[in-house]
């Protein structure tokens, strides 16, 4: 058999077998017990050539319909991806390499990850960032595990307005580890209530408190108020953030958070129907040897020249096995590279501009929608996403607007069935004023 992806042809196969003293390839399979061998061909569709694949998958892609204007967020966000990113992350030396276990031949990836760690550390305001985790949700799960291990306490408080997908993930991760996730009560502001928080913390049994800001409803938590309370009761403040809001907002680390995590998809990673994304994590110094995943460190080569290398590997599974800080092995390195390139392109000014633009766009749209008669679900400060009450079930408006090419947002009843008439709307930097206006106009038509 000849195939463009296979290196050998029948002649070579035969010659190679001869060279190693065999007559038939089957002689190499004799140690596989006959009883378990597959006695029939695999039942798979016929092989396709590249031309056929191209036709086939373009047809399949046609089954998707990307809305011209999408105000959907809820954990994954429409952001502009500069052309440069694909050009550089698409360099095959990066994307066809394995984990940089041989530093001498992997300085490129190692340095890029070192830079990535610097960016995340800087953005989050904490000294130690790892080389990436699977996504924002698993990053939060890992953060909780760190805090529980460090404090040797089992109770973890989570906010009512936590992203519900993330919540499901952390419940899955922690379900067999004796960790007790306690949801803080809902509030009218959709923010953590400092008094109720204090009540839950008083006993001193909480390992950590999770804060998401902006939270699922787009609302900003009052970190300067809440974090000191958490610290007072010796719990670890864990923050989950949208990285691009930090172009404008103070980094959680500087506000006292000791572990900060986030979904890195906004940093130059396409939506791609949910993945691959990027789990961001930075921790305080005291957690340096507790952090999961890989770490790249700066060192020197034997001539004293600057070099980079995977370090503190004794935390990791391939050395510590069941005692490792986590089971993670392959991470999202290429996404981390994209994030590093994104940050390099943006610089401080770019990040600031984008954060402001998101804030501006969302607040402008919010005002417009109020003008046409929609009421907000909450009156708390938000960043670039906000929840609105709708007269009819949200789904009704979603369908109507979709026919105009507008994806109006997230129907909150999908996550919280009792929120029937509520729409979560997100406006990132990608919109021009006319597009926001168009949304409001179309919305008014169907109200």
């Amino acid at each position, binding site marked *: 058999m000849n195939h463009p992806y296979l290196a050998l042809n029948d002649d070579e196969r035969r010659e190679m077998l001869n060279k190693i003293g065999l007559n038939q390839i089957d002689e190499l399979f004799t140690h*596989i017990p006959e009883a378990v061998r597959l006695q029939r061909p695999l039942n798979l569709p016929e*092989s396709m050539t590249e031309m056929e694949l191209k036709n086939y998958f373009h047809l399949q892609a046609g089954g998707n319909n990307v809305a011209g204007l999408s105000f959907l967020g809820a954990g994954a966000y429409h952001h502009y991806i500069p052309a440069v990113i694909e050009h550089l992350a698409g360099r095959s030396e990066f994307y066809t390499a394995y984990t940089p276990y041989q530093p001498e031949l992997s300085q490129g990836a190692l340095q890029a990850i070192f830079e990535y760690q610097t960016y995340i550390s800087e953005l989050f305001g904490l000294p130690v960032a790892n080389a990436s985790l699977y996504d924002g949700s698993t990053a939060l799960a890992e953060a909780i595990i760190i805090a529980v291990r460090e404090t040797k306490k089992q109770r973890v408080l989570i906010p009512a307005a936590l992203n519900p997908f993330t919540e499901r993930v952390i419940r899955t991760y922690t*379900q067999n580890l004796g960790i007790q996730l306690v949801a803080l009560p809902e509030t009218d502001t959709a923010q953590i209530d400092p008094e109720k928080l204090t009540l839950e913390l008083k006993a001193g049994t909480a390992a950590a408190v999770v804060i998401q800001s902006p939270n699922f409803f787009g609302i900003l938590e009052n970190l300067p108020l809440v974090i000191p309370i958490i610290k007072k009761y010796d719990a670890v403040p864990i923050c989950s953030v949208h990285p691009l809001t930090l172009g404008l907002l103070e980094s959680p680390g500087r506000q006292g958070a000791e572990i900060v995590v986030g979904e890195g998809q906004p940093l130059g990673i396409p939506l791609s129907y949910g993945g691959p994304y990027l789990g961001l994590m930075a921790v305080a110094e005291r957690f340096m040897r507790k952090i999961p995943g890989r770490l790249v460190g700066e060192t020197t080569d034997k001539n004293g020249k600057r070099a980079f290398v995977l370090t503190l590997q004794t935390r990791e599974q391939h050395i510590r096995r069941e005692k490792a800080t986590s089971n993670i092995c392959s991470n999202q390195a290429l996404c981390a590279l994209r994030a590093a390139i994104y940050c390099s392109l943006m610089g401080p000014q770019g990040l600031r501009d984008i954060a402001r633009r998101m804030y501006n766009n969302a607040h402008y749209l919010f005002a417009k929608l109020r003008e046409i008669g929609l009421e907000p679900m909450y009156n708390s400060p938000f960043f670039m996403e906000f929840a609105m009450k709708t007269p009819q079930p949200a789904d009704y408006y979603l369908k109507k607007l979709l026919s105009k090419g507008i994806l109006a947002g997230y129907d909150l009843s999908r996550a919280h069935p009792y929120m029937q008439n509520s729409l979560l709307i997100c406006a990132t930097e990608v919109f021009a004023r006319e597009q926001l206006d168009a949304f409001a106009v179309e919305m008014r038509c169907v109200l």
Partner: protein
Amino acid sequence: MTEKISPQLIFEKSGAQKQAWLLPPSSVPVQSFTELTALNLLRKEVLNFPEVTESDVVRHYTNLSTRNHGVDSGFYPLGSCTMKYNPKFNEDLVKIPSFSEIHPLAPPEQSQGSLRIFKDLEQYLAEITGMDHMTLQPAAGAHGELTALLIIQAYFRDKGETNRTKILVPTSAHGTNPASAAMAGFEIITVTCNSNGLVDLEHLQNLVNQDVAALMLTNPNTLGSFEREITTIEKLVHSCGALLYYDGANLNAIMGLVRPGDMGFDLVHLNLHKTFATPHGSGGPGAGPVGVKSFLNQFLPVPVLTETEQLLSWNYDRPKSIGKISGFYGNFAVLLKALSYIKALGGPGLTQASRDAILNANYLRIRLQEYYEIAAPDTCMHEFVLKAKLPNHIRAIDVAKRLLDFGIHPPTIYFPLIVPEAMMIEPTETENRFTLDSFVARMIQIYTEAAESPEILSTAPQNTPVARVDETEAARSPRLRWSPVQD
């Protein structure tokens, strides 16, 4: 090409007030930040990010890439990693805007294209593994293991067998196995192996009892040997009511030849970034689907696909599910590449791939065994392990570093842990005879050098952008980020 830049960090190339990207002007009236100011939420210091131009960024990362070696650069026989060729078409495929720009929460009517990808891939992987149901949600192999182990927990909890707290893991297993089992809340019991890395049956027999939830087996194991006694093992494990778990990261050895499901495994995870030709990306992203037999179906992560009246959609209504393991549905773009790979090869092609992977590994094994001791001297599957103990105290690390000088990425070294000076070699089916022969020649050259001029080996590499790197220094005083020089 030549070493053009000293390894300056992008942060060290910053020049104030430059920008590599500009936001368009906007006519949205400026909104007030008073809320943010009032709450004291605004950033106080400017982010210490570099200020550079587009060209600076491009040169920086272009130059970094030239300091990296990928499969496209040359031979990469890294054992247990299946560094096969990554077809270029697949890289383009995921950039089709309807695939790359679709939001995971887009209504199902708008995302049938993506959902169909999931459906097809689930079906094909089930066929390849001989399992009944698949979840594509895990983001990597270890993540798949964790998913499977949580399913095992849920299964026994559902059955009320809460005593089953132990997972058996052979000593030759990959580190993620015990680590994942621990994250799923299990206690790990180690099963000893013989010199082929095969499970010590007697030891296993002593260990299986009512406390055991499952045995995690890698077959072929990390020494490249096929577990001949698999039927005996299967009976042993099942007879005590425990489950049998297949670490299918190395499925490249067996496609179309033998299926985990047919060997009696109850759960399996796969590494699509190995067997199914999706790129490793310098360490990820991957995808670690999990397959289960029917009786475990109800425990799979939510959501699962349902198909009604031509409409595919996600179903969350699964009360016994372990829950979600990823924020959304898995690494979609990776899954798409794997599906394309399967469709490109078809059944016969996948089978041929495995046969060739085995041929290539045995070819290298036999050609090298005159010079190097092979850990498991029998016929191997897709990879094998040799002991790189050479004269003059030359060790595996020296051999590895010397290979770098020839532009060859060295095999995995010091794994599996049970073999001293282990070198785990996995050529894959996408390497041709010429490459294999050149590798053999280099390995023989190294063998000779060890005897005759060992200093070449102990001072290698010489032709790489940096010389041997000081890992001890890195660990002793960790510098994990760049910091602006303070003076």
